[in-house]
């Protein structure tokens, strides 16, 4: 199963994840 998030955000939004990185519920994946 997969979850796709699509969202609008300011252009200075920065992801704090990498491809193939393991993530857990509640873990930071991006911030403005």
């Amino acid at each position, binding site marked *: 199963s997969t979850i796709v998030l*699509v969202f609008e955000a300011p252009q200075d939004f920065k992801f704090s994840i990498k491809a193939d990185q393991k993530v857990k519920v509640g873990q930071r994946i991006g911030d403005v």
Partner: protein
Amino acid sequence: VINAWTQTPTKWYPIPIAVGAMLLVVIQYRRKRKFSSPQVDVDHDGVEVIKLKGPWQVHVLGALPLRNMSRVWGYINSLELPAWFRPFGFRVYALAFGCNLDEIEEQDLTAYRSLGEFFYRKLKEGARPVDDAVLVSPADGTVLHFGTVQGSRVEQVKGITYSLDALLGVERPGTPPASIAPSHRDSMPVVDDHEFANVNGIEYSLDQLIGTGTSTPSTPTSTSPTSSFPNNPRKFGSQIDASVIESSRNIQETLAHDASVALEMGVKPTLERAQSLYGASVKPGNSLFFTVIYLAPGDYHRFHSPTAWVVEKRRHFVGELFSVSPYIAKRLENLFILNERVALLGKWRYGFFGMVPVGATNVGSIKINFDQALRTNERGRPPPPGTYSEAVYSAASPILNGQPLLPAQEMGGFCLG
């Protein structure tokens, strides 16, 4: 060698797997030739036709009855296991798929009657600390890809893209959907122009932001309650207010919860402020971003809210149930718009927010906690790709006109089969 060549008797025997695979390839090839043409990539409305694209392996997969297989898989895994076997069986499963049994809520493994129940296990309170960032992970899993939406295309994996419109659904003007019974339509809450334009604004905003000129049609401007429903010939089934069916929360609890979400979203919990939030068009200087998280079989399979947001509506796309493993995602184009999925659309503090749980062969059932009317992976032939049924959650919150959610609040999950 000469003796072996001349004297070894020839013995013919069937090779069923190879023959079966070849047969599936031939069937798929004939079907593809019959129903599609390589020159035609858009339908009469100018919307991209979603096709199965990829190497021969994905065409073999496409010829398999994946939905039926998924339901059989779900049935098998719902069978009650003997109590003596459960701890052993689940420990073996945990070892094989890397589950951490220390963090699950119910530590007594005999309490899980089937593998399906164990698969949908809950975690202990506090097992997942929540970061204070504006966006947190909605699930345990692996990040397949992330980035910005370019030209209304979302990148599935590096180099393979699919249409954002196809993923989330397109509102189209035209004749009202015949499948919505007038009596049912009259009894439904009004989806007013404000909200409707807002949802379409998402699609137009893409044009404004990226300037690609998508083929999204214009918004109907009628102000009558019935005609303000999105007139979408691709929609099937009836539009309902799922929150009315679902809503059983205490009103005080509801208001307190909604106020918390409104504060998290950075707005005052007043009706006017909430309406102005919904009325806001996409701000200049914003972009559309995406991220794709893959849940492996051993992962915790409930999903949570990734931020403080309000879900205004859901669109249920009945589709195929291909595997969504990274191996297939790298080979099968349009994977996420071919598969059955539930697009949850709404707003957060920066504008549009959409979350799309996508089903797979082993986990075809998607549950949404606040939407008991939703039924996924049901028996029957799936409608053409791109069609969907829609429900609105406007009655769920008297303040925010949708289903409000706090960061990391449990939303639902994926079940086996």
